[in-house]
């Protein structure tokens, strides 16, 4: 099976190369034979990569420790699910997963458009083939996942921190996002190469883009949740370079999703849209470069990979090649830029784009600052959380505000009447909430501003749902619930977008609350039987147990959490000691509070009691603990789920979208 897998990965290089060449030849000559051949080459690449991936999984599941990847990431007693996920715990395996997902995307794009966009598709095949060629070559010649190493009786095993269900699904989800942006990128390159720079490529890739954006966002969210429950420092986002690597393309991808609407409606911003998707894809590659090059240290990075130069060169080819093509095609991308008013949806989307790209730029500068600092001063520096928060926070605030304003301002020109109708009441309600919070003793400026913006945006979105449903009721004689559901179902893109914005706002409430009002308590020299009190709770440390499990020894501490004298939860944190790992790991215990006893208690809705064992004496059980009270933190996860649901709605097929795509295709054919 292993030689079979190795041969498959080598052959995949040839098929990917043929997809690149045949697609380009077909695009320039119009040859149907080469077009079909390039498509088949993509299918063959996907089939060969699937075989390669199955061979690696077979090696992992059958404990073939002669394969270096298996010896590094698995061992005999490793649970089956973690043997499977060991594929992406190692450098070469994660690249194979990346290439395999890309090949599936390529097959999907080729199949779904096999009888459409004849002028674009050869170049799409060629571009996707080119990206696949890079990854398959890397897998075949630089870091082969089935490379043999010295024979071992047992493997080193996966890092215990990665042995977590969320970590099983986080990387594939993130890769579905990262890799998914290859499809709109390929269509953009195809539009430039074939000089079909109208709205067809934008309309064709809209759902692909939302799909990639959704998975990248979900991947970031899953990663944050994993960090929260596994790393034990009470937070979920540390502005680590690898976290930032996934956040940057998500930000620029968000800007792209908004700015394409301006091109669809007004046929403006053609150059900007092409540049945005090139930037998004380049940032996806940059993220991989950052993770694997070792230029910036990160807890999540693959260390000592030596892949940096290859990714660096590929990144340069992508950026220089794509932007060169944009410059070459500038005459085709010219459009009539005319605005009827400065107060219009077009303007607000441009502002939103500026801030999204600006934040991505700020994150890029700060993430890479250690490199610049070393070049300029010869000294390495660390860029911790405070500088990221300080630099980006004001811009996030404006962005949240714009998420409530932009979608409700009219295209072309907003009248004073419509502005008043859409925004006056939400602004007054938001102001009232801020006054109430101030009266209740909240004095911190940023949380107050964020809460103002959040209530304002939720108000504007609710108003939009209300007005739409009422208008439908008036014309269709339907009940409110029916009118609302039909309104949403028949305008999936628009209302899906509103739901996404609502999700962002709920998440923002969670982020603002948990960052500003997190409370931290340290308790030392705690003996079994002692009771600790903090923030209206009390915690009795009941006992400690030592257990030996197949993979590790663990000290389990049991503690009962009380509120108003009543037991509400038993918290069971652990310290784990692995024979094959130097330092013990921590399993935190979390109690989410959903119980509210009255209005004064509302601020506790969705807060977490987060118990971290820091030290424990195995004989006496004498321990020290940290307790975090994280208010509103569950709002972040809830907002993330709302965001995912909204994106799922927006990505569903839409009759009107199809009609618009058909019109755009006919127009483009007529012009050509």
């Amino acid at each position, binding site marked *: 099976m292993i030689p079979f897998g190795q041969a498959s990965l080598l052959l995949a290089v040839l098929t990917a190369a043929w997809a690149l060449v045949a697609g380009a030849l077909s695009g320039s000559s119009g040859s149907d034979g080469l077009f079909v051949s390039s498509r088949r080459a993509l299918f063959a690449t996907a089939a060969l990569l699937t075989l390669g991936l199955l061979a690696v999984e077979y090696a992992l599941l059958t404990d073939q420790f002669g394969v270096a990847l298996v010896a590094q990431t698995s061992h005999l007693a490793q649970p089956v699910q973690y043997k499977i996920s060991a594929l992406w715990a190692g450098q070469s395996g994660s690249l194979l997963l990346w290439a395999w997902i890309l090949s599936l995307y390529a097959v999907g794009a080729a199949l779904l458009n096999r009888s459409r966009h004849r002028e674009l598709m050869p170049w799409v095949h060629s571009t996707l083939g080119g990206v696949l060629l890079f990854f398959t070559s890397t897998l075949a010649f630089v870091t082969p996942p089935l490379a043999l190493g010295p024979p071992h009786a047992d493997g080193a095993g996966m890092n215990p921190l990665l042995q977590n269900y969320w970590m099983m699904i986080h990387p594939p989800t993130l890769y579905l996002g990262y890799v998914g942006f290859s499809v709109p990128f390929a269509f953009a390159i195809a539009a430039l190469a074939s000089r079909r720079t109208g709205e067809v490529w934008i309309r064709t890739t809209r759902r692909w883009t939302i799909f990639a954006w959704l998975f990248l966002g979900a991947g970031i969210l899953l990663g944050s949740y994993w960090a929260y429950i596994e790393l034990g420092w009470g937070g979920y986002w540390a502005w680590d370079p690898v976290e930032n690597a996934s956040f940057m393309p998500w930000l620029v991808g968000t800007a792209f999703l908004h700015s394409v609407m301006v091109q669809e409606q007004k046929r403006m911003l053609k150059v900007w849209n092409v540049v945005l998707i090139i930037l998004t894809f380049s940032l996806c590659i940059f993220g991989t470069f950052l993770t694997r090059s070792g230029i910036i240290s990160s807890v999540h990075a693959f260390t000592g990979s030596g892949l940096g130069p290859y990714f660096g060169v590929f990144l340069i080819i992508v950026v220089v090649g794509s932007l060169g093509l944009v410059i070459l095609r500038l005459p085709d991308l010219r459009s009539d830029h005319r605005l009827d008013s400065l107060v219009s949806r077009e303007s607000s989307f441009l502002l939103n784009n500026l801030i999204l*790209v600006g934040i991505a730029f700020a994150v890029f500068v700060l993430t890479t600052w250690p490199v610049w600092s070393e070049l300029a001063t010869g*000294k390495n520096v*660390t860029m*911790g959380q405070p500088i990221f928060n300080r630099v980006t926070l004001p811009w996030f605030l404006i962005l949240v505000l714009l998420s409530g304003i932009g979608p409700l301002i009219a295209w072309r020109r907003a009248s004073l009447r419509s502005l008043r109708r859409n925004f006056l009441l939400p602004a007054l309600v938001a102001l009232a909430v801020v006054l109430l919070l101030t009266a209740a003793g909240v004095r911190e400026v940023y949380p107050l501003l964020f809460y103002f913006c959040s209530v304002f945006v939720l108000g504007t979105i609710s108003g939009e749902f209300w007005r739409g449903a009422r208008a439908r009721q008036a014309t269709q004689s339907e009940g409110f619930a029916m009118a609302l559901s039909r309104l949403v179902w028949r305008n999936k893109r628009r209302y899906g977008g509103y739901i996404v914005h609502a999700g962002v706002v709920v998440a923002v409430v969670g982020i603002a609350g948990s960052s500003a009002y997190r409370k931290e308590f340290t308790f030392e020299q705690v003996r079994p039987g002692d009771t600790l009190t903090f923030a209206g709770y009390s915690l009795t440390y009941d006992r400690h147990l030592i257990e030996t499990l197949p993979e590790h020894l663990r000290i389990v501490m049991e503690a009962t959490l009380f509120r108003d004298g009543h037991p509400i939860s038993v918290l069971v944190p652990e310290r784990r000691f692995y024979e094959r790992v130097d330092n013990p790991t921590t399993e935190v215990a979390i109690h989410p509070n959903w119980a509210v006893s009255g209005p004064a208690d509302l601020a506790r809705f969705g807060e977490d009691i987060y118990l971290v064992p820091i030290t424990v004496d195995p004989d006496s059980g004498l321990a020290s603990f940290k307790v975090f009270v994280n208010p509103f933190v569950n709002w972040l996860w809830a907002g993330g789920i709302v965001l995912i649901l909204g994106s799922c709605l927006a990505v569903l097929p839409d009759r009107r979208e199809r009609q618009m795509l058909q019109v755009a295709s006919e127009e483009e054919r007529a012009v050509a």
Partner: protein
Amino acid sequence: MPSPESRRRLRAAALAVLAAVVAPGALVARPAPSPAAAPEVQEGWNTVAGEVLCWCGCARQSLRDCTCGESFDIRQQIETRLASGEKPEAIIASLVNEHGEQILVVPKRQGFNALAWVLPGACIALGAAFVFLVLRRWSRPPAPGPVPVPPPRDEAAEARLRSRLERDLGRVDF
């Protein structure tokens, strides 16, 4: 499942790891300054531990915030040095001297590194000014040309169009 014998061996090995790595620290090490420490020691400890990075590698937390057990020694050292009268600034300077500037959670706002604090914001502000100028240019009305002479009114055509418009509006599904 491993045999009882191998489980016993694993337990013995793990307890040995515990004894060697953790247990000695468990009774003496503290994640925070001693509650009995003088207020100025506690204050100084918070300053130093807030500005200096924990090098456990967990999530680039400050010594004060990190919940790992790796930096107990340095935490203890900081408290001892503060108790002996050393100033927080001097301790930070000596730590930077020993480990390099990367030991700080964020670089000092001086020299080249001061740029990191202002450059991103300044660029976004410049970008905003640029976007404003572009939008203003795009929203300028086109230069006035010759006034077009309206064609004579065709009332029959207007009536046809109006009735079609009303019919189409009636079909609109909001």
